[in-house]
């Protein structure tokens, strides 16, 4: 071993070199720390916050929907959703495959659902299955070890204690669609949220929805919750009190069962809708869980058209119901006196053409009262001709609101058609089609031809006849009430009047008397609408039997049956319009439905009362009220 001084190497120089290496190395580390902590520090601080904080949304319970007496029509129940947190699963595709095996769903379908939900924040759960039954929840929970990342969440969903009752009024809720999410109207919504898609649920979404809560929790690296950073509580949606009366609605739904048609019941003093039914119905509950392709196909089957609310979207010729409004116009305009008699031989000769009355043997000599009670077509050919189509249009359209949308809901509504010379001019494109032929006026006078109306329009128009001439805005919603009972919005307590039909009181009295006759008299076409004598409630109304223009040639379709009535006759509290598509004669198919609804409203026993003692034998229903279509060129 040699002494330091005699060493062959220059130790001091080497030590300095080593020190330089150490200094440079530490310098590099310090530079890197500067870059990470100072230059990029704020960005890394954000990322560390993102690491530890997860925001979980708490869906708000939707508001309830109540009937006018506070009975719950639509409420909420807890439902179980199956979700996937991709970040918590080492192999999400495997988790989904296992889930598909347990649930028996198509793995590709589940995979698509997990994938299609667009961009999500880290750790935000993706909805895989909505509203799964309890036994499936149990099976999934038991197999949890096979399903990393799969979680079950409990969220409120819609419950319908009365089944499909008045589903067309409530509508349904469904997951917000991709198109809706793109629209600015849905800016506050997240994929997987449910939203009212139809009916009251859609119209009053802003009240019903509530506000979702958010909980920001601190989690550790394994995703377990350590504490809560901050939270905003969810606010349940406000409750909606409808004008619907559940008992009346139930009667309407029941009376329509198995038919295609609609019933509207309305308070003629306020315009409040007491019942609004459309058949065939659909089950709104079907929308809360995953719907199979078959179930969806059945729902949108064009033959059944279940989703269509026929009370607002079904526009058909009103047939003889329309005669009430023609009569009102004729009396008001003075073109006929109540006592004037018209001879009905069973047909009416107009130019070279002969227009038939539905009673081929003729009604003989009839005044206005008789003509309404027996629904004589010839009488109305005559006065219709005297009025001319444009005066009929003025009354029916401008004063009674036929052919005008009622705006009962914000959803689709068929405005119907009320023809006039102007209408024809603007409606047709070919010059020769624009001309109004006088013969067409005859068809319009008996509610045929181009005339089409919806049940809600007719209910509103009839209400105007019996309430002293006020044309009201029909209403479905009474008020919006917060969970604590505070009224958020009261829809006009005073009826909203659109216009005044301004029928002279005597004319109205005569019409009302005639409508009572339709129901009460033996020869009246609407006697099946009469309530039992014991109830002491007198019903008035008018039948309509609208001939159907066959959709396919050679196939004879049954007529559409109408009945529009009201009760009690002396001070009307309810107006009911019933429509049965292809139901045949209005007095046979539609009048009993209206009677059942009224019986429910007045709380009297419903029975098919025997026809009043008949002076003449009743007409057979099949050949009864067949109104001709206008056939002029």
């Amino acid at each position, binding site marked *: *071993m*040699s*002494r*330091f001084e005699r*060493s*062959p*190497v220059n*130790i*001091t120089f*080497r*030590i300095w070199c*080593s*020190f330089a290496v*150490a*200094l440079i*190395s*530490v310098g*590099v*580390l*310090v530079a*890197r*720390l*500067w870059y*990470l*902590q*100072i230059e*990029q*520090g*704020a*960005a*890394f*601080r954000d*990322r*560390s*916050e993102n*690491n*530890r904080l997860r925001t979980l949304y708490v869906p708000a319970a939707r508001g309830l929907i109540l009937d006018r007496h506070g009975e719950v029509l639509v409420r909420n129940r807890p439902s179980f959703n199956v979700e996937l947190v991709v970040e918590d699963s*080492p192999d999400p595709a495997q988790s989904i495959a296992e889930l598909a095996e347990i649930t028996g769903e198509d793995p590709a379908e589940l995979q698509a659902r997990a994938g299609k939900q667009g961009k999500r924040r880290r750790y935000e759960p993706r909805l895989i299955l909505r509203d799964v039954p309890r036994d499936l929840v149990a099976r999934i929970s038991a197999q949890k070890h096979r399903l990393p990342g799969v979680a079950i969440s409990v969220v409120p969903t819609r419950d319908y204690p009365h089944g499909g009752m008045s589903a067309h009024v409530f509508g349904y809720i469904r997951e917000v669609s991709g198109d809706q999410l793109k629209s600015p109207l849905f800016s506050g919504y997240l994929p997987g949220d449910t939203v009212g898609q139809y009916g009251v649920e859609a119209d009053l979404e802003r009240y019903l929805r509530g506000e979702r809560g958010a909980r920001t929790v*601190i*989690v*550790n*690296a*394994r995703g377990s919750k*350590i504490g809560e950073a901050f939270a905003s509580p969810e606010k349940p949606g406000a409750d909606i009190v409808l004008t619907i009366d559940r008992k009346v609605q139930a009667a309407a739904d029941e009376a329509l069962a198995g038919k295609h048609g609609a019933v509207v019941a309305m308070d003629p003093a306020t315009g409040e809708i007491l019942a609004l039914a459309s058949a065939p119905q659909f089950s709104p509950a079907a929308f809360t869980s995953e719907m199979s392709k078959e179930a969806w196909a059945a729902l949108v089957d064009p033959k059944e058209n279940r989703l269509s609310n026929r009370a607002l979207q079904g526009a058909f010729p009103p047939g003889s119901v329309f005669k009430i409004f023609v009569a009102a116009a004729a009396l008001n305009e003075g073109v006929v006196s109540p006592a004037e008699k018209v001879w009905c031989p069973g047909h009416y000769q107009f130019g070279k053409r002969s227009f038939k009355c539905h009673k081929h043997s003729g009604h003989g000599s009839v005044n206005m009262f008789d003509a309404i009670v027996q629904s004589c077509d010839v009488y109305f050919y005559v006065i219709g001709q005297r009025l001319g189509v444009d005066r009929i249009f003025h009354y029916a359209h401008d004063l009674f609101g036929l052919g005008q949308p009622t705006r009962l809901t914000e959803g689709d509504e068929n405005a119907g058609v009320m023809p006039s010379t102007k209408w024809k001019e603007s409606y047709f494109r070919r010059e020769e089609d624009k001309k109004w032929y006088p013969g067409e006026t005859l068809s319009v006078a008996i509610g045929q031809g181009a005339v089409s109306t919806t049940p809600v329009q007719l209910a509103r128009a009839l209400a105007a006849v019996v309430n002293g001439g006020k044309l009201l805005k029909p209403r479905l919603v009474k008020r919006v009430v917060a969970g604590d009972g505070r009224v958020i919005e009261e829809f006009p307590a005073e009826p909203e009047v659109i216009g005044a039909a301004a029928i002279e009181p005597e004319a109205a009295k005569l019409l009302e008397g005639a409508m009572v006759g339709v129901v009460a008299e033996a020869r009246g076409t609407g006697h099946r609408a009469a309530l039992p004598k014991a109830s002491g409630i007198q019903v008035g109304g008018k039948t309509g039997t609208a001939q159907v223009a066959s959709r396919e040639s050679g196939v004879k379709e049954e007529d559409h049956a109408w009945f529009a009535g009201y009760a009690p006759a002396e001070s009307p509290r309810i107006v009911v319009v019933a429509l049965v598509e292809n139901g045949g004669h209005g007095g046979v198919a539609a009048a009993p439905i209206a009677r059942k609804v009224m019986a429910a409203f007045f709380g009297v026993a419903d029975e098919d009362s025997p026809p009043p003692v008949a002076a003449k034998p009743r007409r057979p229903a099949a050949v009864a009220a067949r109104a001709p279509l206008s056939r002029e060129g």
Partner: protein
Amino acid sequence: MLSFSSRIGSQVDWALFGATGLLLCCGLVVLYSAGYDPESSASLFGLASVEFSSPACLRQAVHIGAGLLVMLIGMSIPTQIFFHYSFVLYALAAAMLVCVAGFGVVVNGSRRWLDLGALSIQPAELMKIALIMAVARRLSRSPPRDGKGYGLGELVVPLLLIAVPMALIMQQPDLGTALSLGFVGVAQLLFVGIRPRALLTIVLALGVLAYPAWHMLHEYQQRRIIVLLNPESDPQGSGYHITQSKIAVGSGELFGKGFRGGTQSQLEFLPEHTTDFAFSVLAEEWGFLGSVSVLVLFLALVSSMLRVAGRARDLFSCLLAFGITAQFFAHTVINVGMVIGLMPVVGIPLPLISYGGSAMLSLLFGLGVVQGVSIRRLMFRERA
């Protein structure tokens, strides 16, 4: 020996002691936070149960206590003893490494531990100090013949000395330790000097050998190196450690999140935060100021160790102190470089800071040996 003890006070390198003590304190503070567990009552090696919220910190304090005793032993052993027994120690360590390859205990996929009944030891830890001594002895005994540095022929024996334990440790597999052994041996060689032509030849040969060596690496080691180059490519897998560590370090910003305020470590996003990633905890909670201060302490410690090596009384002592310094420094740079994304994640703990008993003992023993070199710098060689 009387003269030895009287001279201790004047010859001890107090700067070295001071920097060591400060770093040990910093380590305890970091471990208190990193190992915080409010529900724990730590058990001291099964002997007593103590109410203390950070078991890692408490146990590390015990390690340090034992380590300081070992340090005194390292100080008191005369340097000549190391010189005399260096090859014996080297042979013993090499034999144990062979035993490990045969009957070692597998922990975490690596065969590193030798189970000797009552205690289990890591022969690689012994080899670290044995190799430094063996290389120091060889180089001090046969300095370069022409004064310009070693030629190729002269390098065969020292390179074999280095390569054999490296190969044994690499197959455990423990890439980090193997590379640090190689680094220290080569640093000692370079310190004495290698002729430029010989150095160039070796570098070229290593370059050619790199290809088969890459394929000898275990897949997890390859992946770690690949992920180092692009850690974000695999955020849930191998890159997770580096990414989380960089988030921890970066989010500390200038002043840090404060003592026990590091969300990355407290919420366990940071893996192995008491051991390999202790520096991330430090950087997260104490910020740029804290982490640079600790690096400056490390630099101060390394400088005083180099000063001891520079003043050593003979070439063996000098190379011994230099080797220990190089090893200490290499571990520091590799560990810090690793947690800030400059080096592969090779699993080397940060000296004096990271939790670990055997590492603490061997580090403090090494520092004791360096202190011993300082104490004996003015002594004349005693005749054996």
